[in-house]
């Protein structure tokens, strides 16, 4: 089987699930990495190291910013000319759009956000969660090529072999975009809860530290946000100690405690870390669904009846403001940092 693997990146920063997709492709036969953008030498090198048999690059200054129409036209033209059996993409906001439009161009279908993909005879059978993860379905695509996006961390990442090299093949970029990128509003630091192996998350409880006195002149809402930000500092310190990312519940995001990008849960992001520590999160159904794929869940909450304890392996009933720093300190000692 001949597979294209679309390497999704933002300004050269690769979505690591792209390499997981490359590993899946290798299991089925030949894997061709497809990379769009400008100045792609570093990405090409890494793609070979992760096992690409061939790397196709559309290197054009018009592709520096992701614009779905141009990217879809480039990918469609490439697939029409080289007829892969399968196009794999990591599931991201970008690739959902890209896969969607490419499928229209190529008159085929998309299997989205898969958690498994296997060959049954000569048929590819995909599994994906539906109804907010309450059910899984198997699905097949009768079109050709089959387009599939893979959920981050659902597939093993292939080993990186630094000695593996190759030369990229340049392909034509289609630059027919209908949109203009005017700029970036917030240069937030990278928040990659989707790819983190450890996530420490905060919820509404993070704002409930009565022992803190907010600076004078704040109204009630400002004081609440200020308190929450102090709480998130503690969470950030634990996350940093464990080399993880900071997550948040919808309540914390809606409360303005922390930007939307940190949100975990069905309305935000589905995550699959090895360790998930929920602090001051009661555990609304959407949040619990969002962390269903976490290997180990630990919950810290004042309320012993909080639903989050139903999905946690270990629980601590207590005040997160004293406990979280204590846990950071304990790990500092044990990890020798």
């Amino acid at each position: 089987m001949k597979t294209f693997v679309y390497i999704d990146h933002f300004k050269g920063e690769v979505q690591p699930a792209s390499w997981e997709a490359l590993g899946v492709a290798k299991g089925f036969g030949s894997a061709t990495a497809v990379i769009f953008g400008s100045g792609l030498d570093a990405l090409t090198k890494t793609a070979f190291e992760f096992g690409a048999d061939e790397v196709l690059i559309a290197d054009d200054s018009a592709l520096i910013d992701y614009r779905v129409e141009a990217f879809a036209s480039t990918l469609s033209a490439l697939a029409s000319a080289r007829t892969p059996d399968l196009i794999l993409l990591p599931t991201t906001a970008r690739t959902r759009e890209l896969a969607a439009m490419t499928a229209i161009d190529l008159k085929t279908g998309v299997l989205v956000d898969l958690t498994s993909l296997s060959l049954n005879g000569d048929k590819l059978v995909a599994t994906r969660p539906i109804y907010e993860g309450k059910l899984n379905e198997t699905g097949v695509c009768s079109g050709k090529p089959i387009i599939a996006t893979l959920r981050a961390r659902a597939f093993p990442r292939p080993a990186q072999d630094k000695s593996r090299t190759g030369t990229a093949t340049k392909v034509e970029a289609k630059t027919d975009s209908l949109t203009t990128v005017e700029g970036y509003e917030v240069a937030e630091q990278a928040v990659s809860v989707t790819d983190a192996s450890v996530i420490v998350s905060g919820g509404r409880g993070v704002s409930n530290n009565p022992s803190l006195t907010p600076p004078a002149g704040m109204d009630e809402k400002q004081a609440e946000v200020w308190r929450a930000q102090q709480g998130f500092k503690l969470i950030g310190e634990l996350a940093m100690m464990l080399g993880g990312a900071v997550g948040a519940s919808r309540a914390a995001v809606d409360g303005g405690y922390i930007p939307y990008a940190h949100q975990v849960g069905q309305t935000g992001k589905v995550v699959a870390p090895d360790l998930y520590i929920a602090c001051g999160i009661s555990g609304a159904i959407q949040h619990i669904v969002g962390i269903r794929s976490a290997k180990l869940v630990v919950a810290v909450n004042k309320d012993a009846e909080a639903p989050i304890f139903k999905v946690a392996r270990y629980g601590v009933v207590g005040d997160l403001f004293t406990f979280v720093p204590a846990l950071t300190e304990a790990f500092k000692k044990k990890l020798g940092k």
Partner: protein
Amino acid sequence: MKIIACIKQVPDSEAKVKAENGQVSWGESPLVINPFDEYAVEGALQLKEANSGTVTALCIGPESAKEALKHALAMGSDEAVLVSDSTLTNLDTQGAARVLAAAINKIGGADIITFGRQTLDDGSGLTAAQTARVLGWPMLGLVGHITVEGGSAKVSRVIEEGRQIVSAKLPAVLSIVQSIGEPRYPSFMGIRKASKANIPVWSLNDLGISAPAAFVTRGELITPPSHEVVCEIIKGDSPEQIAETLADKILAEKVL
């Protein structure tokens, strides 16, 4: 300005969804407007208020999906159209996009089409971009803020890496996310108006198309393993002692 908000009817988020005889069952739980699509309606109404115009809510579904359209009307939409056809039994996202595009053309086009980011049932999040591609219109995805000026839309997209400002000439297809603001509650007057509304139902024949072939088909439904775990509450004399014990337990699980 003419705006069309595309919506879908889905089982409520609280529904206990399970597989029953190879079919998805949600018991007695009510069907509701897809919660993400309420943002599509909210965004459409904000556009109408800022630029004056009309909002038409559009839905594919069975006759019962009129209830979801009535919710959109009660929120303040001016008109609603349901596309319903007995031949639409196996519709994948690209098929839905082709049907929606035909319905949009029959409505007489629009300046802006809004969608939610994804549905709560299938959750693919593909239909907005596919509809844009079928129509040949620009796609502005995951929009949290919109301004319209001189026949162009300038939007702020909520992407994983932050916010991206993108503009496009109208007509365009937008998918709207939560940052647009909480969807308004239907007003009493709105509910009254919606309950009396006569919602036209269009068949594929009315749209001049036949049912699009599906490329993606469902095999079987699988109930995921239960995630009920027994939670061990860590106890101790002080936060330090509990932290010590918990850290040891986490390290023993070898997840770090």
